[in-house]
């Protein structure tokens, strides 16, 4: 049971990591040549070759997996900000609903990995199609990851409490979700209104 939850956690994390890489590639946060296509867990993932980003994501996923296993992780938000002004331009919101029965009582819920991967691939395709309506990021951008956890979670020394980095009057688009029967991940992107669109 623990191994099943761990495997589903891995799928959830790897799917989320694949989606994060996809977002960074499609939004042009890092140059195209710094990404390499890797096929893992049935997914064609775009992984950055930048050592700094790799180590950042590795340490991030290790902590997130711990929180995910204990059912304390509520939401993961990928924030894209302007490098010059630190203004938040986009928020990719991944809402995680954990089945409390599975975490606490170890109830078994079966769902094939293929189906889960299919759902993740659908989300990745949707993210690729988001380029058509999301505003262009013309300036250099940086990204950060926020984790929404339960209030009683002990804060590791490499993490600090932060504000939610919200966007004022955002436009929101809801994307597909994927469900491992233990965790259900809903994806939503909110972005700053483009001035040209407003005009």
């Amino acid at each position, binding site marked *: 049971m623990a191994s099943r939850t761990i495997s589903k956690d891995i799928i959830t994390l790897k799917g989320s990591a694949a989606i994060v890489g996809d977002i960074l590639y499609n939004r042009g946060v890092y140059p195209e040549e710094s990404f390499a296509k890797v096929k893992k867990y049935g997914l064609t993932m775009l992984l950055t070759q930048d050592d*700094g*980003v790799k*180590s*950042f994501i590795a*340490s*991030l996923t290790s902590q997130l997996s711990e929180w995910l296993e204990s059912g304390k992780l*509520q*939401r993961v*938000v990928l924030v894209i900000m302007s490098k010059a002004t630190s203004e938040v331009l986009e*928020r990719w*919101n991944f*809402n995680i609903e954990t089945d409390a029965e599975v975490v606490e009582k170890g109830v078994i819920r079966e769902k094939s990995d293929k189906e889960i991967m299919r759902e993740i691939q659908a989300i990745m395709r949707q993210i690729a199609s988001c380029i058509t309506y999301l505003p262009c990021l013309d300036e250099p951008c*940086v990204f*950060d*990851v*926020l*984790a*929404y*956890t*339960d*209030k*009683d*979670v002990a*804060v590791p*020394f*490499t*993490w*600090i*409490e*932060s*504000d*939610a*980095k*919200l*966007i004022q009057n*955002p436009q*929101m688009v*809801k994307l597909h979700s994927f469900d491992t029967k233990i965790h259900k991940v809903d994806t*939503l992107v*909110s972005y700053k209104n483009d001035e040209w669109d407003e005009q």
Partner: protein
Amino acid sequence: MMLRTPPQRKRRAESVAGDESPVSDRRLVPYGGGAAAVPIASAEPSDPMVCTYHCRQMVKSEFMVAFNTLERQVGDYQARLETLHEQLCRSDDERKKCQDHLTFLEQELAATKGREHALQERLLKEVTDSHERHRAQLKRISELEVELNRESDSRKTAELSAASAKETIKDLEGKLQRLTESSEREKNMLKKELSFSQDSLNLSASKLAANLERMRLRAENSEKEAELLKQELKGLREQLNECLHQKSEVEHKLSRFSASSNQNTPTEDQKLVKLLQEEIRNYESEVREARRLRSSHVNNELLKEKLLEEKGRRERAEMELSKLMEFQERAQKLELELLSWKSLLREIPDVSCYDDIPKKFAALQKEVIENMIKVGEISASLKELEVKLEDASLSRQHAENESALAKEKAESAALGAKRLELMLASVTEERDRLKKDSFVLDKQKAGHTNETLLKDLAEKENSIREMENSLHQLRELLSHQHEELELMNEKLNVEARKVKSLEREGDRLRSEIALLESKLGHGDYCASSTKVLRMVNTLAVDNEAKHTIEALQAELKRTQEKLQAVEELKGQSDVGKIIDANIPEKLVQLKSQIAILEKREERYKAVFAEKISVFRRACCSLFGYKIVMDDQQRPNGIPVTRFTLQSIYAQSDDEKLEFEYESGTTNIVVNEYISQPEISHQVEIFIKKMNSIQAFTANLTMESFNKRTLS
């Protein structure tokens, strides 16, 4: 009628004869005919016979006249009879026609009866169906009302529970606000601690920087000292060389002296020997002093090491002292926190100790979870209500359709009844007309009675009355149905109003859900149950910190190396200050060591040269390329190793490949040979596209081999 004998009439027969009577011309016509009429002129002879005969003739004539008139009357009567007969025939025909008409009407009546009966049955069926449907709808409505009442009760209870939950939530929020305030206070305190720690870190960093500067200054000083010592060393070496030179001269002199010892006088020998002995004693004393100095130097080094160790211990002790201070400060802060937590505990109800806090939190969380579950159940019940509303609306629409159909049917039944009434009226009119005709016929005919017609008519009247009664009943039924339909419509209106109110509630709930979803998408969260975390070492900070740390570490290493070198030089300079008596021995030893090392080096060189030549020959024979390695330096000072490859199948000396090797990467250098189109094409395919130099060289050897073999 026989008239009595009339008086004679004169010339009466003449006058009578003038009249043209068909029957009698007042001439006596003998019986037998043919004889001409004998005129009455001859009446006088037999007057009494003639009278009676005249009377008879008169009577006959009168009788004939009467007979004629009677015949005429009979003829008239016959004509009349015929006409009457004709009239009878006509009346019979008319009667037959009327009978046919009557049978036709009876058939129509029977048909209409049948239709009415069928209509009645259909109406009854429809009425029963509509009754049943109405009953079913009433049942459904009653059930829905019961369910609505239940739902409203449950909603009220849920509202009450939600209100109570809201109140508890408000209380909890108040408590949580207080807790957040306390946590903010703690945060502020922790921030202050952080600032203190940062200040302390800055202080330590400044101390480290100061130490570094001191070390740098020391290093500079030591470098200067080292330079000075080097200069001293040079001087000492020069002195050593002079001493060695002198020593060699002395030895030479000694050797000469030993050779010519027999020739010199003993006094000079004794003087020389004394001098030498004195020098030897001096040297021995110097050697002893040097040994003492050496031992003292070793002791000094040991003392220095001990000093360093003690310095390290002292620094550690100072660090620990500072840590102690920090720990003391933290302990004070923790005590303050404990006091604040204790005060908080006193404020929180049902909590007497720290162990109760998690239980209280767990209880509060459970309450919140239960309330959330209730909210979820309420939302589920709302959804069920919505579904039921939809069903009720559908049933209402169905009932409306059925009522419309029933109305249409009632209207059609009413139209049919009107048509029947009109038919009845027409039938009664015909009946009256027929009655009149029959009465007329009865009057005309003496013995003709239409008892059967009257009976039929009476029966038809009875049936018509019965139909009228049934029509009345149908009308009453229709009126009842209308009333019921009106009642149903009123109920439907009420249900429609309820449905609209429930739809409004559903819309309100949907708008609330949309608001919540928008809040979720916006990023809002409940601060009481959620906190937002991010990694401290983001990429930029991490890189900067790494760079600074690496730079500081490199500086530290350099300064440490400089210190070690300076200390070694110091040690060496301390030794070199004193003239060592064992310098020649040491020199000999060093020379022998140098000679040995040089020999070894030469041997290694020779062996390496042999091995490398073998390796190069093997590489050439195996891979087909003669490899020449050359170390070069780029204009920017970076060292680069250049490899020049020449194939054994090359047809000219210009066919050379050049590669540059730098820190693990090998790049091809463009020259005349490579700029040829064939070779450049291969370079593009194998090196630039496939990134394989091995494939390129292998392909080139194959091509050159093919060229050689073919040529």
